[in-house]
């Protein structure tokens, strides 16, 4: 069998249900073989779209996402998507073509050292230099991507390897002597953890993206109910614990809820599960959870004691560990502590002002209601992302897809494409800013042509809102290059009065949607919100809804960088 055919066989053997990519000279043999296969292929309009779509597919389905790009520019175009997946521990296999082995190192046409470029942003990468290594390498790539702490694996395949005859069969199993993730938690550590939990009076569970990748949402819910502990999540953990639950504290950190931040600062025990204590969560790290002992459960030993000191580390797969831990715990009640967190919730709820303009937070709340919280919500990056995280009230694991670690603008829309492919019967919505959506707007063509009925809600503040917010709060309103409506006719010093702005925002999103063959809607009054959103959701095919919002609307509460997390700015609301 030729190498190219073997690649197709490998994808089939791995149960790959969708492939996202873009052709080119060094992968033409693979595309030739693809023509004969029945693996659904999604031709995006940019390789960045393909890799984010594969990532969205992986997050929504829990399966490995697969993407295929040519060498050189094709390979460099997937770099941002690989880094995005790496930061959020998303299982991807990225296949890139490479110039023929005899040309490698010659600065050949469309040659880049993509293994060198992606070394620090992949879980692992391979270049196949011998056709007989191809089957084992592909098997290893899928295994490494999905096991342990998941992550992206790149396989660079020179053109002559694709054309060569391969004798070795595709292996059914693989063992790597140098890669054996620990799955089961150490039982002594678990017993110690159980004792610590028993002694604590103010426990808080802090759940993150690791709970999603391990599919341990049930186990987290059990843990919370056995020990009667409130639950906060990181941005990546949203959805693993139902946010309408009385134990839910919602999101922790820079734009988390006041009550989550207060609870963590008061807690005497933090049970941290599948988190990595990102600086956006801890704020000033030596003032983080000052009274708490920490039990840290994670599959990746390097996450433990990287940023914070831990009392009891437990290394293992979260679902496996919690299944061992939960039975060791005595059921208990913490009425006083829960009363305390309840009081904080009542005193400091998330809120927003009711000015005349359409409030973005209101849009998110309406979407949550209209979808009965049963939709896959993707976001871009910036204020749109934080408002969604704060106001959607997530209930289901894998229902919130966002670029957390890297904060990649342009992620949400192609990720929505992947999610819609993975879950054809689900409603998939991308909540966007007018900046981010333009980073991968070309994928409207992909969505329209594959009839993927994604709804894109653009919260249009004519600005790079989150950057504007920082300039507004920390740089004394010295606005610099954040206006997306600015043109040469504007005065050098803008007075920020919207009445003086150029009349027409560029692009006209509604017309743009129509140009692509999608439907476009526009909202600029509160009384349109319900009707238009309902219509948009009911409209078949891809839909783009532009909502005019006030550029002065900021995300609150907010912990300034370097402050402890209980010192939050509350804003105007």
């Amino acid at each position: 069998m030729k190498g190219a055919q073997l690649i197709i066989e490998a994808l089939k053997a791995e149960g790959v249900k969708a492939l996202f990519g873009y052709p080119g000279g060094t992968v033409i043999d693979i595309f030739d073989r693809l023509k004969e296969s029945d693996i659904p292929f999604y031709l995006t309009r940019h390789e960045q779209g393909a890799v984010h779509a594969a990532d969205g597919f992986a997050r929504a389905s829990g399966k490995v996402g697969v993407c295929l790009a040519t060498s050189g520019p094709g390979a460099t175009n997937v770099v941002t998507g690989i880094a995005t997946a790496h930061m959020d521990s998303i299982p991807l296999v990225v296949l890139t073509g490479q110039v023929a082995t005899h040309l490698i190192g010659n600065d050949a046409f469309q040659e880049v050292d993509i293994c060198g470029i992606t070394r620090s942003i992949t879980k692992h990468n391979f270049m196949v230099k011998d056709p007989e290594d191809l089957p084992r390498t592909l098997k290893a790539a899928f295994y490494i991507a999905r096991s342990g702490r998941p992550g992206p694996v790149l396989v660079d395949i020179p053109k002559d390897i694709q054309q060569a005859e391969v004798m070795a069969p595709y292996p059914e199993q693989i063992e790597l002597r140098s890669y054996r993730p620990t799955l089961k938690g150490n039982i002594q550590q678990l017993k110690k953890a159980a004792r610590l939990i028993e002694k604590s009076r103010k426990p808080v569970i802090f759940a993150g993206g690791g709970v999603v990748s391990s599919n341990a949402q049930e186990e987290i819910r059990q843990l919370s109910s056995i020990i009667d502990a409130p639950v906060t999540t990181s941005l990546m953990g949203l959805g693993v614990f139902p946010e309408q639950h009385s134990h839910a504290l919602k999101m922790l950190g820079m734009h988390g809820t006041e009550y989550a931040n207060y609870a963590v600062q008061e807690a005497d025990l933090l049970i941290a599960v599948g988190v990595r204590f990102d600086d956006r969560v801890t704020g000033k790290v030596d003032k983080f959870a000052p009274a708490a002992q920490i039990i840290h459960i994670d599959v990746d030993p390097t996450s433990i004691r990287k940023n914070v000191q831990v009392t009891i580390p437990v290394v293992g797969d979260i679902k496996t560990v919690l299944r061992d831990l939960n039975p060791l715990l005595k059921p208990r009640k913490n009425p006083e502590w829960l009363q305390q967190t309840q009081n904080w919730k009542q005193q400091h709820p998330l809120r927003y002002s009711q000015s005349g303009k359409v409030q973005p937070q209101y849009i998110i709340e309406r979407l949550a209601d209209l979808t009965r919280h049963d939709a896959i919500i993707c976001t871009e990056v910036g204020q749109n992302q934080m408002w969604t995280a704060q106001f959607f009230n997530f209930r289901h694991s894998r229902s919130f897809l966002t670029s957390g670690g890297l904060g990649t603008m342009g992620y949400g829309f192609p990720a929505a494409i992947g999610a819609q492919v993975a879950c054809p019967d689900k409603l998939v919505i991308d909540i966007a800013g007018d900046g981010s959506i333009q980073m991968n707007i070309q994928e409207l063509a992909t969505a329209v042509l594959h009839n993927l009925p994604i709804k894109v809600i653009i919260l249009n503040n004519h600005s790079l809102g989150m950057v504007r917010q920082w300039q507004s709060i920390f740089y004394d309103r010295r606005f610099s290059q954040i206006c997306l409506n600015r043109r040469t006719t504007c005065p050098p010093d803008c007075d920020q009065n919207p009445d003086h702005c150029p009349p027409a925002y560029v692009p006209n999103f509604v017309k743009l949607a129509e140009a692509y063959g999608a439907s476009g809607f526009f909202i600029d009054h509160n009384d349109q919100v319900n009707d238009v959103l309902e219509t948009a959701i009911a409209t078949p095919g891809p839909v783009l809804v532009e909502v005019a919002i006030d550029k002065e609307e900021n995300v609150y509460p907010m912990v300034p960088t370097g402050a402890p997390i209980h010192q939050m700015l509350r804003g105007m609301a």
Partner: protein
Amino acid sequence: MRHIINLEVENSAGVLARIAGLFSARGFNIESLSVGKMDSDTAHMTLVVRGDDWIIEQVNKQLNKLVDVIHVSDVTETHYVGRELVLVKVYCPPSKRPDISQLVNIFRAKVVDISNRSMTLELTGSEPKINAFLDTLQPFGVQAIARTGAIAMVRDSNGKN
């Protein structure tokens, strides 16, 4: 503190770049790195790393996490033999030969090349011994030094370093 870390790694393309990249990306301080082939698909490396306990713990874990790394052992706290090899060229007109030869004997070094202007010496030993040797030669005029990093092996007996 200075730590000696032994690695057994897959002898694959890029493994050295992965390890070097890890150190630069995470800002770890590497003092020396020596690599040698063990068999057709395994290589041995010894790293000398400086850092507090916190950093060294991360270094060990991060190395372990690399897919190509088979085994990591920090031998610092064990009984181990640590050795380095140095080649040093000193300025040495014929008149100085007896002086230098005497030092060679004291340190149990070897003379590996000799000319009218210089002598090239070879010494194997622990890091302090090599440093002492180089210090002693300094007054004669050291012209070039080639030094391997440390390599290390755990002792089965209770001998000293």
